[in-house]
């Protein structure tokens, strides 16, 4: 990284379209209800509807019998699918092969799909699905991390660890030693559009599937495998999702598979759209954790050693748990240097739905640990937690991460100090202390926490993307790439890049649905990488065409290359100007191709997982947030009163879109850490399977005083698309400041004692911590 220019050395790039706060490309459609989601597609004539069926009374055990006669007898039911109907491989897992599309000999969690009803209407399919009888030789499920430990279930994946130095010795030698343990809850994605897929069979045993998926290629591969046809016989298309957040990265495949299987069996188009409750019961969530740790530090709070074990509930299968738990470890340091360390991860198997990707992908849990540890040190030493944080930041000479990557762009301190001043942190902290001293029932708290988030898929091969660009002879441009649109504004950002390349108005760029038929072998739209990867790939495609046009113009007008510029819809050729469309037309007449693919692979990534060394991330994204809360010590109720955010997006491709990601990510993170609570009963049944019982933030939960600012950056030191930075996931973790502020408020009841606050800090969790402080 040292060879790269520092932010201050990065030259400003003048742009026409990149950097504008353009509206989301579908905004006009969204507000009119004319943006088409899977369930809005006008169904081809004869489309059937698929509803999944499961054993309502059991979580795990062998399937003894399956009685489906009553289901078949319902008028309007055409078929009932079971594992036996699958011609190929009965698996929809991302890699390991442990996620059956339809359970075969046993079920491993409550809600696992055993059969699927295919009927003329969705209503009939859903009603009939209730009539299936699944007899299970029920076993007692392992539901929690503690159950899995006690029952010694076989972990879904092997342990993994980062080590540096001799932690045991260092801890023993430390002046101050902290031992602590806490739980971190999971999170339901609650994308507003539930899982949905529409499969249309083709004439040769293949299928085209319209799927609400972040990973069309994986859906394609899953369906091909399941139908026993080549990949080329399956096309997967997605114009947009009504939200994804990671929940449609691996877990969209099963519903596309059921639709495709129904289409294969009946020869008719078939749609599988989950009811919300089924969606919440049958699809995975953010991993929940127990974290056990010990830390040693000096009297100033500077860490000497950290020994932490992350015990994660993975559910019944591996899904993406390797990447998720690895990322927890990668972010167990957040922005802090741990001189000696042992970061251990266990991936526990439970009889619950398989946990999966969720915005932050394990990182948030690692970082919550780091921030809780900072609070614990501050409580023990009676210090301002912000001072403890600053004292432990990466800096020159203390700059090697637990995985051996050097941190060279140390902007965390500058950002913290800017926010510390702009949020008036110190004065407000004093005020709060005075308020708390005079208030019996109501207490306030404040916290300022940083975010440092590694950008790149840690599975290095996934850091690649493709694009396809056509220029038509009127100068309009057809844009396609492998990234999917789930609301994050990827399509408009990439369109801005392409418009910039050709110097044309954004309206001349026609954005088209992601499809495996145009750009093959894509990575999921995940890891915040959508714009970084697809922006570059699309730009590369555009550059190929642009270079052909330049070469043509050089010949045609006999000018030097340097005399040609593309700007404001025109091409300046020496002293001459020609409309972009006219140049395209002339080039076409001269028999020059106006179509190209583009490709990009992130450079400089080296990661040796076995040795736990290398450079898994191309760069880091940074942010900082300061939150103030008020709690009621009689009820545990809490309000978030003010939030100040400073976030680093490098040089923004689209500031409005980026601010949307920051605010939306923050509120989603706040939900995870305050009110969103997944409750499984001891029989393994999810009791919070609908928005009536699972509460995500609503409008009134947004702090009325909410100040969000982009960090003034000269640009990403890494050579990313227009020096921008990824913004999808990092802001979620700004919400850790809210949780720490709650901890701070509870802590005011008895200074010197660490509040046993769990996450999420629901009213109940807060009151429990309050009571512990009072006794």
């Amino acid at each position, binding site marked *: 990284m040292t060879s790269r220019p520092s932010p201050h050395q990065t030259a400003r790039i003048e742009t026409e379209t990149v950097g504008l706060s353009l509206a989301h490309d579908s905004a006009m459609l969204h507000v009119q209800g004319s943006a088409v989601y899977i369930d809005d597609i006008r169904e081809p004539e004869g489309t059937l509807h698929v509803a999944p069926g499961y054993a309502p009374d059991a979580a795990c055990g062998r399937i003894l019998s399956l009685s489906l006669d009553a289901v078949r007898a319902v008028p309007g039911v055409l078929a009932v699918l079971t594992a036996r109907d699958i011609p190929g491989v009965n698996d929809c897992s991302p890699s390991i092969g442990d996620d059956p599309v339809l359970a075969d000999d046993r079920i491993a969690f409550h809600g696992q799909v055993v059969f699927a009803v295919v009927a003329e209407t969705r209503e009939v399919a859903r009603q009939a699905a209730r009539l299936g009888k699944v007899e299970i030789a029920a076993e007692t499920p392992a539901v929690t991390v503690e159950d899995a430990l006690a029952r010694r279930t076989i972990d879904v994946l092997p342990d993994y660890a980062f080590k540096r130095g001799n932690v045991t010795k260092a801890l023993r030698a430390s002046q101050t030693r902290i031992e602590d343990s806490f739980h971190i809850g999971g999170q339901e994605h609650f994308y507003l559009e539930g899982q949905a897929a529409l499969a249309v069979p083709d004439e040769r045993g293949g299928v085209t599937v319209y799927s609400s998926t972040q990973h069309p290629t994986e859906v394609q591969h899953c369906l091909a495998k399941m139908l026993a046809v080549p990949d080329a016989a399956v096309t997967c298309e997605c114009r947009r999702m009504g939200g994804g957040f990671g929940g449609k990265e691996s877990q969209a495949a099963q519903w596309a598979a059921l639709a495709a299987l129904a289409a294969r069996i009946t020869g008719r188009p078939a749609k599988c759209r989950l009811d919300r409750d089924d969606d919440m019961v049958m699809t995975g969530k953010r991993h929940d954790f127990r974290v056990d740790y010990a830390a040693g530090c000096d009297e100033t709070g500077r860490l000497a050693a950290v020994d932490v074990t992350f015990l994660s509930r993975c559910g019944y299968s591996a899904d993406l748990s390797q990447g998720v738990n690895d990322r927890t470890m990668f972010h167990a340091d957040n922005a802090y240097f741990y001189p000696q360390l042992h970061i251990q991860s266990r991936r526990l198997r439970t009889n619950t739905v398989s946990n999966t990707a969720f915005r932050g992908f394990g990182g948030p849990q690692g970082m919550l640990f780091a921030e809780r540890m900072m609070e614990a040190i501050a409580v023990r030493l009676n210090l301002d937690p912000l001072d403890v944080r600053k004292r432990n930041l990466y800096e020159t000479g203390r700059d090697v991460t637990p995985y051996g990557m050097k941190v060279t762009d140390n902007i965390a301190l500058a950002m913290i100090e800017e926010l510390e001043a702009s949020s008036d942190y110190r004065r407000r902290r004093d005020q709060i202390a005075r308020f708390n001293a005079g208030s019996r029932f109501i207490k306030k708290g404040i916290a300022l926490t940083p975010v440092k988030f590694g950008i790149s898929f840690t599975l290095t091969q996934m850091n690649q993307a493709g694009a396809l660009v056509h220029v038509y002879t009127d100068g309009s441009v057809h844009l396609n790439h492998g990234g999917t649109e789930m609301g994050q504004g990827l399509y408009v950002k990439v369109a801005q890049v392409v418009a910039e390349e050709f110097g044309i108005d954004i309206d001349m760029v026609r954005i088209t649905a992601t499809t495996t038929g145009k750009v093959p072998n894509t990575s999921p739209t995940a890891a915040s990488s959508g714009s970084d990867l697809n922006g570059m790939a699309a730009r590369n495609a555009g550059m190929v065409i642009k270079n052909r046009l330049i070469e043509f113009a050089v010949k045609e007008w006999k000018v030097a290359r340097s005399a040609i510029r593309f700007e404001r819809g025109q091409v300046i050729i020496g002293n001459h100007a020609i409309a972009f469309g006219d140049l395209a037309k002339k080039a076409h007449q001269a028999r020059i191709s106006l179509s190209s693919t583009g490709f990009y692979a992130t450079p400089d990534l080296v990661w040796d997982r076995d040795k736990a060394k290398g450079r898994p991330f191309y760069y880091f994204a940074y942010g900082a947030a300061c939150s103030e809360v008020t709690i009621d010590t009689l009820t545990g109720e809490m309000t978030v009163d003010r939030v100040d955010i400073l976030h680093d997006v490098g040089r923004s491709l689209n500031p409005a879109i980026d601010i949307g990601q920051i605010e939306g990510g923050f509120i989603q993170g706040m939900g995870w850490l305050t009110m969103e609570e997944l409750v499984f009963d001891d029989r393994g049944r999810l009791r919070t399977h609908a928005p009536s019982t699972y509460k995500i933030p*609503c409008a009134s939960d947004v702090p009325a005083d909410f100040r969000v600012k982009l960090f003034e950056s000269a640009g990403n030191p890494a050579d990313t698309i227009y020096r921008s930075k990824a913004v999808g996931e990092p802001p979620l973790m700004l919400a850790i400041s809210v949780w720490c502020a709650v901890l701070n408020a509870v802590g005011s009841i008895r200074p010197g004692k660490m509040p046993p606050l769990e996450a999420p800090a629901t009213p*109940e969790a807060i009151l429990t911590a309050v009571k512990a402080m009072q006794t």
Partner: protein
Amino acid sequence: MTRNTIRFIRRGKVVEVTAFPPSRTLLDYLRLDEKSRGTKEGCNEGDCGACTVVLGRLRGGRVFYEPVNACIQLLGQIDGTELISVEDLAAGGSLHPVQQALVDHHGSQCGFCTPGIAMSLFALYHHGEAATRQDIVDQLAGNLCRCTGYRPIIDAAQQVCDGKASDRWSKESDAVRTRLAALQDDTDIVIGDADSFFAAPASGDSVAAMAARHPDATILAGATDVALWITKQMRILPKIIHLGRVAALHRLENHPDRLSLGAAVTYAEAEAALSAIDPDIAELLRRLGSKQVRVSGTIGGNIANGSPIGDMPPILIALGASLTLRYDAAWRMLPLEDFFVAYGKQDRQPGELVWRIDVPKLQANEAFRCYKISKRFDQDISAVMGAFKIAVENNCIANARIAFGGMAATPKRALATERALVGLKLTEPDSWSGAIAALGTDYQPIGDMRASADYRRAVAHGLLQKALSEIAGELTERTRVLGQRERQVVA
């Protein structure tokens, strides 16, 4: 007189629907029958608001535009209204002002919640007054957005909902009123036959007679609960008797000493009168359900369905409300608390209707407090709902009526606690502990997904402590994080 069709206004024209399954939801009508797919299904239980549409309703000569969740509204309920969905707002190639504001403020990301949000804001746009931030977040409590964090939506609303509506509806308000007025009549509606029907009688006598004749029928008021039997439990409800057209059941009488609420009075209709009893009731009603739920849901329905976690029963019991039931031509009256017999069991015979609720107002020496405790402040079901009416004489508690929801299988009075409170001095907080402990005699709560039993117990204690502290004179800015009474009085 019987009508075998429902009629409503759609895009300026009268639509008549003569045959539909009794349990057809408005959302399925829109998406599947009309094939209008702008309105989205997010949860199919009235909690996310993606399916929000607006109903124009004529009341007292004025048109009210009210947002409803189409997923838990039955098609038969919309007789006599104007149905407005998201596709209808833009006209002549121009976006509606609320749509334009959402675009200008970057108020959509994935866009799936956006149609519902546009419709909620459309209703607010027609509210007639400039909306405050509080009005806006209250209006949006029933519209979940998972992407934006709401800030740009709130900004858009603040800009556009300025009380000066200027759109097709405001410009054609006379025509809208005339069209709606032409749909109003006093005929009973029956769609279907004796075995399967959607009925919406217009008079009290006919609804009572019909309910008695069909004791197996499902009685429908706002449908905010019953519709879930259809959409979630997949129950087939062959006979539905809707109360919404019975004028007598919509009557709200404001007597000097009491309110008398017909069973079909919605939360929205009762809001002003109930709120006048005490500001805590106003705050509770602000947080109860969502706007969509409050314009449909009824207080009678909340009682009739006997939920142990309904928010109104504890309040009404603490206030000393009584209930009137009607079976055909026979009426009977009972204290509300006696109506709730056991979990899922109420003192109501098949065919008998909850008819009227009488709610005493507070006496000069009575103080009232109520608190709703839930994971999320807005549109959440209470873990614990506590209501307290304390009569004070010479700084001593002369009488107390206390009721809790979420603490037992039914909404239940705290009789032991009430007795223990009598005679205590408000000036001596140390003397309260015995009475607070008596809650342990009154309630043995259970744990569930909303809260553990321990938490419920601790909160009940905390709430009584809070109520007594406040009644003893503590400012609520020192006892609450939300809903401070001082603020409400000023407002």
